[in-house]
């Protein structure tokens, strides 16, 4: 079986037959956006068969962020052009099911009966209303690892149980936004990404792997309840202790820390060009001061206490020095002297970054919709002896309905036809005209690595 799966995914046989350490794990995902999908994405990279249940009536919000250039296309095609989708749903299979129909729910439960893991970030009232609460699924599959990720937890007795939680709204409530930015300005917040979503997703990854371990050892299933609110507040431990003991309230500090200096982003030659510099110890400061020369060598700045006390002055000296140089030049000069420094990269910079390119972070992966494939990031966890890989970009909605319902739910083709005829299940066929991302040539020029097949 593993040999066959390997052949399907890689176009070749793999020695030992392992295509990722999770190639014996079957996961069902009922989820939107990032928190739960980012966890299942990691499982899929390492070989798990992840089936995403999708509905036309309630599409994953990722599908609503289709490409600007695709707005004029057929709405179904537009939904499938979202760059988030290729990335967040990579390696997953999509099954189209209307869970509000009794036979749609029955098909989902048939899938879940053989699943090792169920992961959802639907609100608890919503999954319970669908008939997919923990008790519902445990009734057909008591050994399942069920991971629920509602914003505020699954306990109806708690005050925020019914509250709406959207990714960018979580960094504020967990305390991260107030700690971001300069102390003399409004909180800058982390408006452009949603760190608590990923943080919750990473906790879910440890929870799934722990649930699988627990199952290996005891045969038991697990119900794991992950409130995004609680996972992110957890990393504020030292400041929460401090507040409890002293009443002090840690505040945002720009780029500064109380235990090292100087640290900051400094202006360089070019439009909005910056270099990040961190001096971690006295040797680092000696090296930076030597590079800058002149007043930077003042003895006042020698010890850490002096550097902390005169940080504004140091910022001016460093900024005056960097302003006459390029960010790449400053970074190379300082790194040669043993000081941590890097260009503050924008997306063009990331694409050209020597590490990003040499380590093939961005990969071009086969896609049913895009004739030239789709480009997105690899995974931070690489297991060299049992490698995971991307074998396809996130699927079109319902791309795998028939295959999944036959192989995983055990339905006969005639039963699936009847579900499709009644609108309970739906499917997508290969588009007649395959698309291409407008800037794929640029990716080619950069030599972005193509994965097999």
């Amino acid at each position, binding site marked *: 079986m593993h040999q066959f799966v390997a052949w399907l995914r890689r176009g070749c046989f793999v020695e030992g037959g392992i295509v990722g350490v*999770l190639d014996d794990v079957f996961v069902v995902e009922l989820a939107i956006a990032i928190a739960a999908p980012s966890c299942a994405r990691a499982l899929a990279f*390492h070989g798990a068969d992840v089936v995403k249940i999708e509905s036309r009536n309630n599409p994953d919000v990722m599908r609503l962020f289709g490409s600007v250039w695709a707005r004029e296309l057929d709405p179904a095609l537009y939904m499938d052009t979202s*760059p*988030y989708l290729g*990335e967040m749903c990579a390696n997953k299979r999509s099954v189209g099911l209307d869970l509000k129909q009794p036979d749609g729910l029955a098909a989902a439960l048939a899938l879940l009966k053989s699943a090792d893991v169920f992961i959802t970030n639907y609100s608890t009232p919503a999954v319970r209303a669908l008939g997919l609460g923990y008790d519902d699924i445990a009734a057909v599959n008591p050994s399942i690892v069920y991971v629920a990720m509602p914003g505020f937890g699954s*306990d109806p007795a708690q005050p925020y149980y019914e509250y*709406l939680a959207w990714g*960018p*709204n979580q960094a*504020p409530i967990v*305390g*991260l936004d107030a*700690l*971001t930015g300069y102390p003399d300005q*409004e*909180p*800058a*917040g982390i*408006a*452009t990404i949603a760190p608590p979503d990923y*943080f919750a997703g990473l*906790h879910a990854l*440890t929870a799934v792997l722990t649930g699988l371990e*627990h199952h290996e050892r005891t045969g038991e299933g*697990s119900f794991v309840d*992950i*409130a995004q609110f*609680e996972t992110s*507040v957890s990393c504020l431990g*030292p*400041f*929460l202790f401090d*507040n*409890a003991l002293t009443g002090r*309230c840690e505040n*945002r500090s*720009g*780029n500064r820390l109380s235990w090292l200096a100087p640290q*900051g*982003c400094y202006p360089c030659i070019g439009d*909005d060009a*910056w270099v*990040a510099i961190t001096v971690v110890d006295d040797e680092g400061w000696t090296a930076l001061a030597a590079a800058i020369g002149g007043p930077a060598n003042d003895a006042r700045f020698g010890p850490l206490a002096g550097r902390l006390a005169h940080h504004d002055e140091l910022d001016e000296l460093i900024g005056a020095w960097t302003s006459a140089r390029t960010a790449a030049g400053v970074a190379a000069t300082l*790194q040669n002297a043993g000081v*941590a*420094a*890097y260009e503050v990269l*924008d*997306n063009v910079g990331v694409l050209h970054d020597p*590490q990003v390119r040499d*380590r093939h*972070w*961005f990969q071009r992966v086969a896609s049913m919709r895009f004739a030239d494939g789709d*480009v997105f*990031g*690899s995974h*931070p966890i690489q*297991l060299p*002896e*049992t490698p995971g890989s991307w074998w396809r970009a996130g699927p079109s909605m319902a791309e795998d309905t028939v295959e999944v319902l036959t192989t995983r739910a055990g339905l006969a083709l005639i039963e699936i036809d009847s579900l499709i005829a009644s609108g309970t299940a739906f499917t997508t066929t290969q588009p007649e005209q395959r698309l291409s991302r407008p800037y794929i040539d640029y990716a080619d020029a950069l030599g972005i690595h193509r994965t097999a097949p």
Partner: protein
Amino acid sequence: MTGPWSGVRVVEQAGLTGAYATRIWAALGAHVIVVEPPDGHPLRRLPPFAPGHAGAESSLWWAFFAQGKHSVVVEAGSDEHAHILASADVVIGDVDPALGPPQPAHDRQVVVAISPFGLSGPRQHWKGSELIAWASSGLAYTFGFPDRPPVAAATPVQFAAHVTSLYAVSAAMLGLRGVRRTGRGQVIDLSMQECCLSLAPETGVPLFLDDRVHRSRHGNRRAVSRPWGLYPCADGFVSILIVQPAHWRAMANWIAEATGVDAVLDDAFNEMHVRWEVSDFIDDLTEQLTRPRTKLEMFIEGQRRGIPTTPVNTVADLRNDPHLASAGFWRDDEHPTLGTLTGPGAPFRVNHDWWQWASAPQLGEHTAEELAAV
């Protein structure tokens, strides 16, 4: 020792890049040994400190992140160090790529080697930091106000390090699964830059390759629609995020009630991009609503109306949050020298008795016992 990972020996020789998630792993039953030099782990020297205390046990970073771990003091490279390493199923450590990839002590050992840029590539020897992880992943460029330099996300928290630690522990768990499948361990190369790159999709390269829109920092409201971001209140800020049409209709009704400006109810504003085009108009009305109210009023009443609002909480606000208190989030750690430390307990819940907690170890508390055992 019970817990789902009982019997698994983990040696940790990392700084902040390992600390957060190994604390969780220890509470889930793994036997986590922190190897410390004679003058103590670097986390023992990070402020804030417990009031009235000084020395190796006083850092609140250590008191939190070392909960449930075992402290063994050995000189790096000594025979004792080698014995401890040889006893481990998993080693999680910061490595200097200049010294080459770390060597596992035995065939079944899983080694997670954490470094700023990974163990390969032209910049593998470059030095890193929390700020540099945000800078080298394209994310710092998008945080902050346009009139000031870019900033890291929540600098005091060291969030990128905690993200890295969660990847490190998940990598180790996957590696152990590999041992079960193949009988062999492996060395896992974890780059902090790549850990941060994995957080970037909403602003990152795939989107850029699709639309070539240059996304830079633009303060605390996102440049996609309005209201979308932070708004000033009587006692701080509230976050308002209007995505779906129903959210906007509820928001427009509230604005109209509070300001008497019925023009906001015009159907034209139902479109996200229209509200973005008249940002100043929408923001001005929204602020008329938010400025006289507290962040908690905005949160509770907003949610009651079906609008995704949240308070911009400070550390002190979180300590007073009614939900965290009611949900039993807080745990009192009875620390042998610092007294009662009230802080986060388990980060998630499970229907088994998985979690077990203990205070952070004293410097070298377990040296004799661990060395005797190996």
